[in-house]
């Protein structure tokens, strides 16, 4: 596959542009921080995204293996699932790769008549997006589950067994007010 070779040759620039476009989803100050701070513990979000998109790219070149893509996607999506994003915003980063490739390799693709190969590669990206959806849903469900169990978890098994909780009773003035 010629396109594959082309993608490999341009790996660095594609990943750089892909990262840039993903970071566009953050405010300008945040973007600057996510991009600049290279310590993975001081900047887990920026570093995770930049590392894992490299892994995703590598996987895509080899095909679409959900078992391998899913854990990589998980590391990015799990973060975006708890940030201020709607579901579509949270996984839009997958689709952004398409635009990056078209823009960066436009000329080469036309000159070498690679549009069929491109269409095939883009359908891999679509498949990856579907996997990302599933991952996103799993993360959100987990949050709801933790949230729902939270009150229960914070009270000891023993206490529930014994029924020993007593709350502050309704206070007189308030009862008057509301009745």
């Amino acid at each position, binding site marked *: 596959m010629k396109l594959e070779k082309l993608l490999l040759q341009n790996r660095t620039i594609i990943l750089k542009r892909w990262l840039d476009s993903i970071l566009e989803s953050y*405010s300008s100050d945040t973007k600057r921080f996510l991009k600049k701070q290279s310590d993975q513990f*001081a900047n*887990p979000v920026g570093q995770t995204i930049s590392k894992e998109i490299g892994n995703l790219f590598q996987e895509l070149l080899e095909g679409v293996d959900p078992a391998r893509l899913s854990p990589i996607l998980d590391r990015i999506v799990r973060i975006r699932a708890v940030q*201020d994003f709607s579901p579509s915003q949270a996984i839009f980063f997958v689709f952004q790769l398409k635009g990056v490739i078209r823009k960066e390799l436009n000329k080469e693709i036309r000159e070498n008549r690679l549009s069929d190969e491109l269409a095939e590669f883009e359908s891999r990206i679509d498949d990856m997006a579907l996997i990302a959806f599933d991952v996103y849903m799993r993360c959100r469900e987990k949050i709801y589950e933790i949230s729902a169990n939270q009150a229960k978890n914070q009270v000891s098994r023993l206490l529930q067994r014994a029924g*020993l909780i007593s*709350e502050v009773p309704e206070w007189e003035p308030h009862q008057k007010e509301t009745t």
Partner: protein
Amino acid sequence: MSDVPKPEELAKVDHTSPLITGWMNSPVEIKKGVACYAGKPKNLEYVGLPNPREWSPLDEDWKLPDNWKEIILDGLRERLERFRSLKIFMDICVRCGACADKCHFFIGGGDPRNMPVLRAELLRSIYRREYTTAGKIMGKFAGARDLTVDVLKEWWYYFFQCTECRRCSVFCPYGIDTAEITIIGRELLNLVGLNIDWISAPVANCYRTGNHLGIQPHAYKDMLDFFVDDIEEITGVKMEPSFNRKGAEILFITPSGDVFADPGTYTCMGYIMLFHYLQKMGLDITWSTYASEGGNFGYFTSHEMAKRLNAKMYAEAKRLGVKWILGGECGHMWRVINQYMDTFNGPADFLEEPVSPITGTKFENAKGTKMVHIIEFTADLIKHNKLKLDPSRNDNLKVTFHDSCNPARGMGLLEEPRYVIKNVCNNFYEMPENTIRELTFCCGGGAGLNAGEDMELRMRGGLPRANAVKHVHEKYGVNMLACICAIDRAVFPDLMQYWIPEVGVIGVHEMIGNALILEGEKERTTDLRSEPLHGMEEVEEAEEVKKEEKVEENKDV
């Protein structure tokens, strides 16, 4: 932290403002998953907090009193006079941005208003408008703006997205402590009835029954009796903790989470075992079913409320006539004791300077407050070779240690917990340097934010911590996150479930309970969680089968 920056520090500071202009113009959107529920009227009424009413942060109308603006501005003026530090913090920030990327909520969530410098600007912009000439004349050009309902809402949203962890203050060349700005911000909000349920309910409960959950004295004792039974089953030794005993030398107070919430309950079992062990050596200690809360959610409400709740502990110490107070594993409890208690309710002259009855060590650091953190007490015991320990009983655990913000940054308890852990377990691994000790990352749920409805916020805020835990999990196989704080023990299980489900949470005194060799104990086959010890899996299984057979036999009869 010194208040005045050193010249070389100043030289390093880049004085160009990193801030997006226009943050003032973009209105805040209150989101589910981030915002907490509003305080319930019954709980506000119970402790006499202003403007009790049903309201929701998601509604347009927050049902403020008509003169809310006057109340807030008067409140701010009064506090500027009362707290010199507040006035200084308002004036001296040069917006260098050194603190900007140090807050876990910003790092994990990316919302620029969670940069500490912007969090402080929320209040500072009003301060400038009202109290500085430039602000009065030039308004927005001088970073000033009018106090409106939208500003108030923004305050509420973001002051309840700060865990008052103080990480940012470590990086500020001027020593500005944004946590203190949050504290004042929350205090002002409370003046017009803006608070959150997860704080005001524990406050009311604590005021009424002495603890956050509203557990009554008999129930408190029942819980400890349960633990005594469990301990006897595991070790074969029967213990008899004493309650409300007048004339005891020491009063023990721990956060109610240790008594009522897992996995804190196992830490509590560790305390009981330690005290039993030391009894023969001369420890004379009592629990109290009235001072049944070491935590102080009043501190997340106002100075006044913190003082009221803090006074309860000392009143109980006085009533029982003890000499000093030993405190359980807790975080913010120690910030209150260490930094505020003396001014609130001190000096506690009716108590004596704490001395360990076992080692004779004087806890001079607790001279004023007469209250000692149990991790110091236990570290001292180990240092003097007073405990017989079998660390191999913790061999199932590969442990890392989370420095809780308050004991670490607030009181410098950095070595003691590590020393104890290394003596009770064989596998200890540190997280990366820039995530521990003074630089520790918050659990994401401190200062009253460990509710259920703000889970998204907690998961973001806890991300930097979880990320470091994940690192040691992947590198060394760490499976246990140890801490000396009850809020941590409540917050981390949720956080780990989302980010690294393979890692559990443990209090340091639970590990002590496991390792402590008690006189007359049977051969232990399980840990305090009733899980088989390392190498005991088969023995335990056989025991279980035997037990089941017995039950079956009894059924047949």
